[in-house]
């Protein structure tokens, strides 16, 4: 096949690196719920190998098969043969789009451009926080703004409580997810964000969403921000906290924060400060199983996405017996909350949200004591 010849030349080594050992089956969240060979990295690498060898013609079916992946990167991290399936799959997605196949994300790409968010919705949530100049600027991201507004509100309350002088901005979608689903960051949106951020005169930006964090750090469209970019856990790890809980607490590493950005210690530093009873799940850090919401998966395959979240949640509960599950990612938070069954007593929060609540509990206890 002549289509995509350049792609195969560039990625040939990467594609044949896969030795078909199948070890990725043990760590792929999609495979975990479907048990179908095409679901995991090996299946997709074989698909691309055959396409490269001219044995397989690319069809919409093939293009869409590549979308069944949350880009969690667990396969790459655990691949004994040194293959990087996540990179290959993302590159192949772009190739499919370039050639003209419908990979289910065309509508999202157009929606992001038109509405400035991944949901194609019109009204972006406002938290009523100041917008102007400050040494810190906060960026929340689409999932926080459209699906977990209350959680972000708590994060904002915590920062206020801690006396952090920060401003919010008129955000639009960082549009980074488009890069992972075959499209590109929208320049106009990126420029809007950069402009607004620079206007604040801030020295540092605090981001609540790990995906946005990754985009701001990595993508060339954001290289002229002119300030330090931190995920909120990096910021909070250096702040002294005056609250504690004796509840049994565990932590889920979001793929975009952990495997993709290498931020494992800071969330744990924060949690250890406030929860002496911190326990790790069995599969944790670079081996943490994905919650199922990344890489556009929650939008295109929501049922499976929630099955994956339910799986991960069930295992965390079984392995840790924790009363509180913490994470610091609006997508993981949302997927877990949707997946949690009523009979499961575990409570799920973002770290910042949880700490804000501890402060509130502490404050009301003090108030009662003072009045009593």
């Amino acid at each position, binding site marked *: 096949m002549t289509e995509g010849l350049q792609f195969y030349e560039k990625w040939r080594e990467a594609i044949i690196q896969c030795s078909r050992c199948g070890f990725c089956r043990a760590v792929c969240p999609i495979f975990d719920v479907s048990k179908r060979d095409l679901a995991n990295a090996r299946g997709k690498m074989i698909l691309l190998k055959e396409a490269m060898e001219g044995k397989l013609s690319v069809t919409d079916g093939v293009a869409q098969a590549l979308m069944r992946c949350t880009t969690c990167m667990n396969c790459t991290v655990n691949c004994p043969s040194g293959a990087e399936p996540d990179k290959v799959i993302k590159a192949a997605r772009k190739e499919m789009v370039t050639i003209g196949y419908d990979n289910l994300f065309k509508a999202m790409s157009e929606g992001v451009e038109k509405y400035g968010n991944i*949901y194609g919705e019109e009204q972006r949530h406002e938290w009523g926080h100041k917008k102007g100049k400050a040494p810190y600027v906060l960026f929340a991201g689409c999932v926080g703004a459209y699906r977990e507004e209350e959680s972000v509100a708590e994060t904002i309350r915590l920062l206020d409580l801690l006396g952090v002088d920060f401003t919010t901005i008129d955000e639009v979608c960082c549009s980074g997810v488009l890069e992972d689903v075959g499209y590109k960051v929208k320049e106009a949106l990126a420029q809007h964000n950069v402009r607004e951020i620079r206007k604040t005169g801030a020295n540092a930006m605090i981001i609540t969403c790990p995906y946005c964090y990754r985009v701001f750090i990595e993508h060339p469209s954001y290289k002229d921000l002119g300030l330090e970019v931190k995920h909120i856990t990096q910021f909070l790890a250096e702040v002294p906290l005056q609250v504690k809980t004796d509840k049994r607490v565990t932590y889920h590493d979001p793929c975009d924060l952990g495997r993709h950005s290498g931020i494992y210690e800071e969330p744990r530093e924060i949690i250890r400060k406030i929860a002496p009873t911190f326990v790790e799940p069995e599969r944790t850090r670079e081996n943490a199983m994905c919650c199922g919401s990344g890489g556009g998966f929650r939008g295109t395959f*929501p049922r499976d996405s*929630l099955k994956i979240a339910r799986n991960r949640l069930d295992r965390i509960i079984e392995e840790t017996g924790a009363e509180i599950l913490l994470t610091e990612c609006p997508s993981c938070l949302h997927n877990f909350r*949707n997946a949690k069954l009523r009979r499961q007593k575990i409570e799920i929060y973002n770290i910042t949200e949880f700490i804000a609540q501890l402060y509130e509990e502490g404050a009301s206890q003090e108030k009662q004591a003072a009045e009593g």
Partner: protein
Amino acid sequence: MEIEGYEFPEGLFYEENHFWARVEGDLVVMGMNDYAQKMAGDIVYVGLPPEGKKLTQGKSFTKLESGKWLGKIFAVVSGELVEVNEELEENTQLINEDPYGKGWMFKIKPDTMDELKNLMTDAGEIHEWLKKEIAEHGGK
């Protein structure tokens, strides 16, 4: 009865946010109507609040989601939430398959049955309302 190609069974009360209500003894059962179910697409999540929650007619008290869409669920009458359809926790497709039957969502103990007067029952009224909804949001 069928209105503009959507099912709107008789004997139910219809609320303008696309929910239906039915009297069952001294309780009011509510769910989502056929038009909304079709527009939403495959519903994958319904928030099921704890029993005892206080509700106000016309105010949203929980949400539901399909792949990309998040919709608010509005109380059809004021009162206390006494029962949720637990089947929906793992079988949200019941809402799409049988929105008026197995896909029922909540049972409310109303402060007063009088509030049902604020909802639509007349076929003509429902028809006019639905036509406007379709014109604004699409559907047929």
